[in-house]
């Protein structure tokens, strides 16, 4: 077992982990951060995407010990003072989720994408999200949500 000190969503944690423990399993099983999910075994789907020191990583592709001394942000750490993150808001406004399983990863990746490129073209959005799979939406509304978060489009037909 190896001791790690990690800051997750603003809280400092100190834990013993097996060296083979993946970051995503550490988050889910030891910290109860079950908002971050596992969708595949091959780092294709991106459902487990979190931020490590502010950059998106697939948490199934990082060992927990690699997070030692670093900051992790998960989907559960985005709400500040009761306010949704603008990307969360955009996903809801644009109906960019159906079953919602890919959504935490998709939102974390979108935040990273817009950090790198605040005004992406549709093509840049599509390529920027290539590592995150969604089976429900056909990506149409996910692209719209990214555009809305970037201030490029307004939500359509809102009634609430």
């Amino acid at each position, binding site marked *: 077992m190896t001791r790690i000190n990690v800051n997750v969503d603003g809280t400092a944690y100190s834990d013993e982990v097996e060296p083979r423990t993946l970051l995503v399993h550490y988050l889910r099983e030891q910290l109860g951060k079950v908002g971050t*999910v596992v969708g595949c075994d091959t780092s294709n789907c991106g459902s487990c995407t979190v931020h490590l020191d502010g950059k998106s990583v697939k948490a199934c592709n990082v060992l927990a010990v690699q997070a030692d001394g670093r900051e992790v942000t998960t989907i559960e750490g985005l709400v500040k003072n009761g306010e949704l993150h603008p990307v969360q808001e955009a996903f809801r406004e644009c109906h960019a989720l159906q079953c919602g*399983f890919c959504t935490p990863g998709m939102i974390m990746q979108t935040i990273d994408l817009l950090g790198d490129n605040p005004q992406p073209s549709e093509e840049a959005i599509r390529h920027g999200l290539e590592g995150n799979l969604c089976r429900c939406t056909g990506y149409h509304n996910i692209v719209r949500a990214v555009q809305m978060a970037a201030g490029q489009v307004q939500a359509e037909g809102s009634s609430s």
Partner: protein
Amino acid sequence: MTIIEPTTGTQREVGAARRRKEDQRLITGRTRWSDNIQLPGMLHMAMVRSPYAHAMIRRIDTEQAKALPNVISVLTGKDVAEEQGVIANAWAITTDQKAPAHLPMAVDRVAFAGEVVAVVVARSAAEARDAAELVDVDYTEMPAALDLREAAEDKVLAHPDLGTNKSSFWQLDSAAQGSGGSVDEAIAEARANGIVIEREIRQQRLIPAFMEPRSTVVDPTGEQITMWSSTQVPHIARFLLAATTGTPESKIRVIAPDVGGGFGGKLQTTPEEWITFLAAKRLGKPVKYTETRSESLMSGHHGRDQWQTLTLAATKEGRVTGLKVDVLADMGAYIGLVGGGVPVLGAWMYNAIYKFDSYQFNCTPVLTNKTWVDAYRGAGRPEATYAIERLMDELAVEVGVDPIAIREMNWIKHEEFPFTTVAGMTYDSGNYEAATARAKEIFGYDDLRAEQQKRREQKDPVQLGIGVSTFTEMCGLAPSRVLGQLNYGAGGWEHAEIRMLPTGKVEVITGSSSHGQGHETAWSQIVADRLGIPFDDIEVLHGDTQVSHKGLDTYGSRSLTVGGEALILAADKVIEKARPIAAHLLEAAEGDLEFTDGKFTVRGTEQGMALTEIATAVFAAHNLPDGVEASLDSEATYDPVNFSFPHGTHLCATEVDTETGQVKLRKYVAVDDIGVIVNPMIVAGQVHGGIAQGIAQALWEEAVYDDAGTLVSASFVDYTIPSAADVISFDIDHTTSPSTTNTLGTKGVGEAGTIASTPAVVNAILDALRPLGVSDIEMPCTPHRVWSAIRAAKGGQS
């Protein structure tokens, strides 16, 4: 664009693009996936699966696994042979259907690679998996029936004891049932004086590939055994657990918490659920099993996988006179929950939106030593729609007219509804002219045809193709009587309940459950309008057999058309139960009361009382009329009188690089007529996602087995579901001809996009390649396949 305006009184919510109630928790990670559940003392299970497609199990050595620390139990099929129950085949499509017994855990013989032979239960998931690696199984490999067509010839038997691989034979013949003429006569006549088109079409094997891997937790502590499972069918699971394991139904509670997609893939009762149930019962401790993605792809049921042999007869002018269909359907190793009926569901859809004189459908489901095949989004209808829409394009080429013109010549005119088809189905409504006109307009059909002509003349290496798909489907499974005639094991009704809480809030309980469809939002909209209760005061509960005690679950685009109607009936009962109480409290005659906007008013006066006030008065029950029960709560069960028949016109433009075989989507337009729309935002999402899945069948996805029967595409590296970079934005719109068989006029939309888009894309590819002499291609249309087809047409080697 709207053809017929809905006439449903004072609607505020129905038709509004309400943001979804369920999203708040989903976008913040406050979710309850089955795998999130942690219980005191919970144990974890890992499976030992067969690496062979067909083998006898000689010996299983579990000693090394048992010796690992923290391993609680190792079970083999033999250990539990007497108590494990069976996995149900609920649709014996013929009374003489041959179906192998499907045990949760194999005892003597495995019939596909991925079948469970033993399980390990340990304190952690990692320890369970480590120990599973140490279970040593001796197999004697047997010849495997893998290729569908060879299997149909019984060269190698998938299950030697059955004596054949052919599970059944099912036929629909229009002459025999009196819904049309003789197809053989029509074909003979067309061979002499008309046009005959013959095709063999491969419907490749697909995998539903929902994003949330399946997970099951069973807690045997307490009076009831509780199962949380990532399933579309909690009620069916509960019923079948009771029926096959001997545990009384009343002692079982099944909960489908947040479920991450299904697409038919979770319309199953699974070996993994049954084994988890058994292990938890045996050990007296909660047990969790969560599959890996590879396990999901190899052991969750697959979809499609057919060979279709088609003969279409037409006059020289292009009027279709007959269609003969012979389907070989690969069932895989076992007949799943509804798998026996899935290929047969296509029987009513091959004639699609057209008027044929004669029709015959023959279906032979075949057992093989591959993963079992069952429902996948569309389930029987996409296969049928693909076949007929491909044939209509070929007929257009033969006749020398535009593909839309050939369809128009054959389709049912909007004034001809209700229309009984050659397959014997009565379509209640539709307007194919309107949907097609609108689709052509948005698509810029004539301009794209002009561009195509230009590229052809210029011999552009990148050719433009335009694909047409004018589809219909049958939704809203299903009238129970029809299911009974088809030998299905259950009915097709749905149940709803409305509870009027004393605080003015309303609980709505529905028997179908959502795994992405947005029931919580759409159902709130319906009840809000019907009872005049604010949208936010309504809570929709589903997916827990203790809360929603009756239901037949979610599949076949049934939730709204069947479950929505049950909801309306329950709401109307609430109003009728409130009426005498309102009359009593308002000191008025019942006949003088009218109910609008959530309030009973005495006609011609200002005097009135809100339904929520009556609910509070009923709770206190201090002043109720004599003989009236102190409850407004109501429930209703609705059995549909007919299917509903959504339809639409999808147009796809593709650019095909004739030098590399690369296909690029250029434009996709979908105009769907799904009747009255409750929430256009949710509907758009369903259409988008459906289109993408159908495109994926056309271009990318295929479950591939090697010669030994190993699934090669058993990860997302090899089973290539599309990413955002693979697809484009879609242009969608609607025309509306309300269904006449339910109160709201809804038709169902869950599967429409998937059914329509596959032929639209392949027709577009072939339309691009037509001048090069290419007239057929097998799916998925990978660059290599497209390039090979071009080379073959040129006379070169493929």
